[in-house]
């Protein structure tokens, strides 16, 4: 067994370049001959909302009284074209996660929790389950390249439609649900044999590029009689252009997923090295909308690394209309809980480190299709935990908004923010704290 840090002589120096994780990965790669596929999102340090701070009200601004003065949190999505926009009570939604990647009880819990606090959940690659529809008051139905489980009946049953172009964990990549997670039910929903690896295509089968996308959105509107809001989801890369093209293509709502966004199964090299962080992506998306005079007309949902009300408030202050959570929702339901430490150890992981969501052996019964493991997870309790967590996110967001004197969380603005680092100041385009310096603006 390796010596602990305390036992190791100080004369031993670990390489920064070849640290123990790098050495372990090289040795694993040499032994197995295949790249590392895992779940979770980017684990490296990235510029993020932690690098921003709010300027609370003082003499020049007055704050609102906590617990007394209203600070509203409602958001309406799909006001541009849809006859039936979504009306959410809070600006935090549940991101798309498939039945297949997650167990049926976990999907049910997401629906229960979101519905309790008046927000939406989203299907995923693999279609809509009846349990999910039943327990989600507001359900967004994803149209993905694989079209697994895609059918017009579910499209009409949905409250909104999300055309998925990409996701933050792997912009430009498809997916792979490994054979050991393909139960009979998952196989049937996806029209494939049980036990084989199910590849999800990286491109849509019937459209390519922005001009086609406009026609595709037109078809989806015709099929749903123009009732449902149409979202377009992109992984954050060339965000400024992608957002403008999505607006041009007729989207009601644009979802931008930064590179910290989670995944059920993606190559580690993809997760850590493709895409841009959520922080610059919000700024670029809002720039694109403002230039087209479509900010607040086409709503913007931002995801990728949202953990707390501080993250929510900062995303809103930069101009998002709402945020989405995925990884944090799984953690709220019990993923990586110390309660299962012994079992994490048995499968070579540890609570706080577990990222093998692709493997289907989740001790918490969330990212699995094994009945025995899934049965451990109580969807009622899980739903309660999701609702609790969403309430905390909302209360924290309101706390920060009131401190800045805002009676609606959407009234937060970039002017309420400063940056702690030069990088964050440049990316979010807010001044470095204590200065009026925004790198890259006004020729400075």
């Amino acid at each position, binding site marked *: 067994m390796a010596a602990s840090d305390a036992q190791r002589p100080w004369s031993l120096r670990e390489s920064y370049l070849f640290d123990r994780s790098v050495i372990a990965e090289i040795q694993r790669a040499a032994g197995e001959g295949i790249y590392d596929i895992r779940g979770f999102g980017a684990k490296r340090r990235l510029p993020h909302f932690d690098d921003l701070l709010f300027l609370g009200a003082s003499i020049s601004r007055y704050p609102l009284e906590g617990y007394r003065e209203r600070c509203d949190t409602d958001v309406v999505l799909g006001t541009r074209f849809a006859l039936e926009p979504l009306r959410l009570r809070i600006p935090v939604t549940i991101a798309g996660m498939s039945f297949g990647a997650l167990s049926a009880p976990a999907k049910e819990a997401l629906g229960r929790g979101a519905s309790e606090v008046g927000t939406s959940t989203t299907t995923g690659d693999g279609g809509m389950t009846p349990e999910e529809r039943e327990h989600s008051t507001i359900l967004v139905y994803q149209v993905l390249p*694989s079209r697994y489980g895609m059918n*017009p009946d579910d499209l009409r049953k949905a409250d909104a439609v999300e055309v998925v172009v990409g996701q933050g964990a792997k912009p430009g990549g498809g997916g792979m649900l490994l054979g050991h997670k393909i139960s009979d039910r998952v196989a049937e929903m996806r029209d494939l044999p049980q036990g084989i690896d199910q590849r999800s295509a990286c491109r849509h089968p019937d459209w390519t590029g922005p001009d086609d996308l406009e026609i595709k959105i037109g078809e989806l509107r015709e099929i749903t009689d123009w009732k449902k809001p149409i979202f377009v989801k992109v992984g954050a890369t060339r965000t400024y252009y992608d957002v403008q093209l999505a607006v041009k293509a007729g989207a009601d709502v644009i979802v931008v997923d930064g590179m910290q966004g989670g995944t059920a199964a993606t190559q580690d090299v993809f997760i850590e090295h493709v895409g841009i962080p959520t922080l610059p992506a919000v700024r670029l998306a809002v720039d694109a909308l403002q230039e087209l005079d479509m900010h607040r007309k086409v709503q913007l949902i931002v995801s990728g690394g949202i953990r707390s009300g501080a993250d929510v408030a900062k995303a809103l202050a930069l101009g998002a209309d709402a945020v989405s959570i995925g990884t944090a929702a799984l953690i709220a339901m019990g993923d990586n809980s110390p309660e299962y430490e012994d079992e994490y150890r048995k499968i070579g992981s540890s609570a706080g480190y577990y990222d093998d969501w692709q493997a289907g052996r989740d001790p918490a019964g969330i990212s699995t299709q094994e009945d025995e493991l899934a049965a451990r997870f109580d969807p009622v309790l899980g739903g309660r935990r999701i609702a609790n967590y969403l309430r905390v996110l909302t209360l924290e967001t309101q706390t920060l908004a009131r401190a800045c004197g805002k009676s609606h969380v959407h009234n937060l603005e970039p002017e309420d923010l400063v940056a702690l680092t030069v990088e964050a100041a440049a990316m979010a385009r807010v001044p470095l704290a204590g200065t009026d310096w925004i790198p890259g603006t006004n020729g400075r």
Partner: protein
Amino acid sequence: MGAGSGRRLRVGASEGLTVGAAETTAAEVVDLAVTPLRELNQRLHDVARERPHPRRWRVVNPNGAHAVACGLDAEVDVEIEGHVGYYCAGMNKMATVRVRGNAGTGLAENMMSGTVVVDGNASQSAGATGRGGLLVVHGDAAARCGISMKGVDIVVKGSVGHLSGFMAQAGRLVVCGDAGEALGDSIYEARLYVRGDVATLGADCVEKPLRDEHRAELRELLGRAALDGFDPAEFRRYGSARTLYNFKVDNAGAY
């Protein structure tokens, strides 16, 4: 594509008989030169609720419009007199849609059931991800015909372009002419029949023996497509070698 219009729906042949209380026999004629597409599709979507409802529809002057007769969910016959754009008869259920012209990209994409027939040629991705029903193209179909098909039957009297049957999961694709490059690339369990030449086969797609059961299957499919003139024995059968079903590093060069 606009949602609203001040113009009225122009409907002809109103002298039709009423059959029982549910259907009329005469065709409802909708002229897309004067009637917005939205009104046509809305009426077709609401058709089951109309009493009595028209069983037969004729659409004239489509002029390449997109999304004509998409999302249908009733046993109606829709005949379109002219060329259509993208996604004609998309996600079709139960209806019979006939295009007396050519069809653009994504013809009958994700169709669930019913029948879609095109007299002319079809552009890319005809029958993409279709889950059921029958799609017949009397001319040629371009690239990616039957891409990711999940149970639909497709019969093409002419030839198909490259990457047809790409990642095809289930259903049957019958090509009476030739197939372009990379036929059936990364195919799963769909069955492909080609009468003419195949430029190349895609990854994991191989020729398989044509046995009696396959000839019977072909005869049945050609019969349903009203293309009885072809001899099933002239076709060759292609399907998955199933070597790429579970990722193995030794196969990395095959992808």
